[in-house]
Each structure stands twice: as C-alpha cells, then as structure tokens.
C-alpha cells in the first residue's frame, strides 16, 4: 500500500472559525485549498454557539454563532471549485524533511498530502482539573455539554454545577437554562468573573448564584455524580451542592502538536494559555510554509479567530503569487486592534507582545496601542 501523495496549494488544518475564514479568503484570492476537519461537520465551535456574537457588523455582531458558520460556508460555496473539504479527517503528522502531511479519514482511509502552504487552525483542547471522583460519569467538559445540547439536542442532566465563570462557563450556563436544565451554581476561583460582565448579569437575573473565590473539592457519588463538595478559598469552609452534572469550564489550551512537528519556534505564553508559535503580523510562523490562526495561536475568542484566519489565508495566497489587495491587511489589522483593545483583552495584548516576531504586531504593547 503506497497511496499517492495528493497535492494542494494551501492546506488548512481545522475547519472551525479561523480555518474556514482562511480557506474562504485564500480561495477568493484564487488559491486551491484543501480543508481537513476532524469533526463530522465543518464549523468548529461556531456550530454550538446559540448566543448572539459581540463585536461589530464586520464580525457579524448580533448574529448567533451557528448562523455565522453558515455565512462563512456560503462564502466558501461561492468559490467551491477552489475548495475541497474533508470531514472526519485527522491530521496525524507533518514530516518536515519533505513537507508531507499524513491524514486518517475515519478509521479506514489514509492519505498523504503535500501542500505548498499550510494554515494551522487546529483550535484548542479543554482543560480539566484534578479532584477526587473526577472520573465519575456526569463530570463533563463544557464543550461536551454544549455539543450534547446544541448539536445533538440531548439534555446532559437535570441540575448542573458549573466550574469556571469565564465566557464559556457563563454562556454554557445560560444555554443550559434555556434548555430547561437547572444550574445550581457557578464556581469561580478568582475574586471576579473572567467572562464578559453582561453574560454574568444575564444569568444572575435567572437566579443562578456565582460563587467567587470558590472551587470544587470533590465529586460525590458511587456510580454517577450525585453532588459536589465545594470549598471557599476565602475561609476554607466546605459545603455540599446537589447536582447530577459537574461541568468544567476551566480554560483551554492551544492544540499545538502539529506546529511542534512543523518545527515552528514555540514559546510558552501563559496569557495565551500554553505553547504557541512565534509569528509575524500576517500570522506566518518561523516555518515559512506555515501560518497559524485562531485558538491554536493563543486562546482568544471566535471574532478575532475569524479575522486571524482571513489574514493567514490572504497572506498564504499572496506568498504563492496570487494577486491580492494589500489594503485588506490594514483593514483586518484594524479590526483585530479594535477587538483587542477592551478591558477583558489586556491578557491577550500582553501575550501577543511576547510572540510577535520582530515586534511586527502593529505596534501592540501590553499596555495598549501606540
């Protein structure tokens, strides 16, 4: 068995918010694009987002996330002769000596592809935290709960304890309430919520307590989750909360394995939640053939992931000689700057200042913009 090596001008690894925008942008510029998505359908996290997005109209503000996925897919459909997509496709490895990428489709099919350029838009993985009984059925990552509810229409349980008051914890709590599931409480170890204040306000109004400076000490139950022991980090007090689901929304880590394999210079940046590649303002890594976009470049949010994807796709197409409108970069960079100049983005600004090659991130510093 020696399957033929397929060719592609631009390979996009990951068909989520960043990858699809990169693909659309590169294809509109004229490049032939292959998108590989490990899930059964395209859209990544967007397809689970039933809430309205923030941002401006350029980022589809006020539109629910799953509708945004549809809009990007429509854009891709307008140049469908340029884009091939393969779902249920896992990229298994990148071989730097000849630039070959190996791919498994499902359990049976295997192929190799040798792209001229690659946009890595591999997204992120959920973090879990250690506590006794965290392997009981009923302990979920927030992403899994969202997939069950919003992709498959399956209620995860009756009463949820949410751990983490970042945007994911807050938004998933709201979606659980919409689905008719009780949320017993949201725990947050920090003295303040990590997500947007308005997301917290809208679930507080529904009667959901947010317990700041609290964490989970243990899950209770023999066969499945029957409750949780919660501990105050302020005074050490512990108490029991009744629940049949414990949902962990304690952060994400960039999915970086393929970037390591590609020999990209990587750096551990706590503000971006893990190892991320050094790159320039056009999202190009230190491997000249490899761009990065979205959460793989550092945990942020979908609006900026989409813009990063557009920059990466456009620059990858330009590097192949396709004629592009250079002014688009300026437009996209302005949008990123706007998205990143709010109160909650200070960490992102600090993190990005540490991964910019040649200080080439548009004059961004940890304190703002100059």
């Amino acid at each position, binding site marked *: 068995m020696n399957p033929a090596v397929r060719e592609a001008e631009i390979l996009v690894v990951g068909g989520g918010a960043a990858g699809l925008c990169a693909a659309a942008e590169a294809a509109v510029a004229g490049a032939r694009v292959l998108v590989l998505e490990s899930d059964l359908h395209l859209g990544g996290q967007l397809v689970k987002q039933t809430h309205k997005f923030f*941002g401006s109209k350029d980022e589809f503000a006020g539109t629910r996330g799953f509708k945004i996925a549809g809009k990007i897919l429509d854009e891709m459909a307008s140049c469908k002769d340029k884009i091939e997509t393969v779902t249920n496709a896992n990229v298994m490895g990148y071989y730097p000596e000849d630039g070959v990428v190996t791919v498994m489709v499902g359990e049976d099919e295997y192929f190799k592809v040798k792209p001229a350029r690659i946009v890595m838009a591999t997204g992120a993985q959920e973090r879990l935290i250690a506590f006794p009984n965290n392997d009981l059925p009923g302990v979920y990552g927030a992403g899994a709960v969202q997939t069950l509810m919003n992709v498959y229409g399956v209620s995860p349980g009756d009463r949820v304890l949410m751990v983490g008051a970042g945007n994911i914890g807050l938004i998933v709590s709201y979606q659980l309430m919409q689905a008719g599931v009780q949320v017993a409480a949201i725990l947050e170890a920090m003295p303040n919520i990590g997500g947007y204040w308005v997301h917290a*306000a809208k679930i507080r109004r529904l009667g959901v*307590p*947010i317990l700041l400076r609290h964490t989970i000490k243990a899950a209770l139950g023999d066969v499945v989750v029957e409750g949780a022991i919660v501990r105050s980090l302020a005074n050490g007090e512990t108490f029991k909360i009744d629940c049949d689901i414990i949902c962990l929304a304690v952060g994400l880590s960039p999915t970086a394995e393929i970037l390591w394999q590609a020999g990209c210079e990587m750096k551990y940046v706590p503000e971006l939640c893990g190892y991320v590649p050094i790159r320039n303002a056009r999202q190009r890594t230190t491997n000249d053939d490899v761009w990065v976009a979205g959460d793989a470049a550092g945990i942020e949010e979908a609006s900026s992931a989409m813009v990063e994807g557009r920059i990466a796709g456009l620059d990858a197409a330009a590097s192949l000689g396709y004629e592009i409108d250079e002014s688009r970069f300026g437009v996209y960079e302005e949008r990123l700057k706007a998205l990143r100049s709010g109160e909650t983005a200070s960490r992102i600004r600090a993190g990005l200042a540490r991964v910019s090659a040649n200080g080439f991130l548009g004059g961004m510093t940890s304190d703002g913009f100059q």
Partner: protein
Amino acid sequence: MASSNLPVDRSFESGVLNGECPGAVLPPECLWKKKKNGFALIECPQRIPCNPCATSCPAGAVRPFADINDVPRVDYEKCTGCALCVAACPGLACFVVDLTYGEDLALVKLPYEMLPVPSAGDEVDCVDRTGGVAGRGSVVGVSEPLKDHTRVVSVSVKKDIVSDVRAIRTVN
C-alpha cells in the same frame, strides 16, 4: 429555577449592578417621568468590543462609538423608547422603562430568550438582578422585532419596583 440555600453575592464583580456607573446610567428623572414610551436603560459597564446598541438605534440615540470598546451612552433628546436596542443587544443589557404607562404602573420592556414564551395578559414573576422576585407583573405584549428569537416582553409593574425588575419568569 436555581433554588438553593447558597449565599447571594450581590457584588458587582459577580455580575450584579449596584449603582450607576459609566455604561449604566439612568435617564434624568424630570425628563423620564414625562416621556411617553419611556427611555432606554442600558446596563453595560464594562469596556468590551461590541456596538449593536449604537448601530441598531434608528434614532441615533445610543451615541455612535468612537471606539468599539466604548460603553454606551444614551442621548435622551433622541431616544424614542422603541426598544430596538433591547432586541439587538447580544448581552441582553438594554431595557426600556416607561413611567407614563399609568398612575401607579410603569411599563418595562425587556429581552427574553427562554421558554415558554408568555402571551399578553399573562401574570408573570418580575425578578431582580439576582433572580429574586420583586413583584408580580402583567404581560402587555410580546414582540420579536428582529425575527431572531430574542423577544421583547412588555410587562406592566408597580412603579416602585421599576428599578429592580430586569427579567421575568413565567408562572404556570
């Protein structure tokens, strides 16, 4: 809903507004008391990149943002109380309060994305910023201005609780 004996944290840091601040100011009372259809009240005190309140306002009453991270400011000379911002705000942070609705009654227009959807005439629980029942109210109308599943529910409530009522809960 989330019944519990847990302490209720009313702190701003946990998402509860507890006073006026930039991004969450009340209309001047002298104007507000007489304003037919009411004024928009926005509770959005954090600088985040989001502007649909301003871009959706047909009257230009939510002042245009210089920076997308600006907190909203309402121009009460222009606000008609149309409640389009209530429907458009992704953060469900816009409300309209009409103090001219009746002698003792005010009309509160608020965003609603839960089930079941109430109907005009229904009695509902009016709840405060921590989900506590502030009083009963009567649904006057339900609309879906942007046809995107965010309803605007108009509910009449006793005037003395308008500053607390920020959501409704249907009662069987």
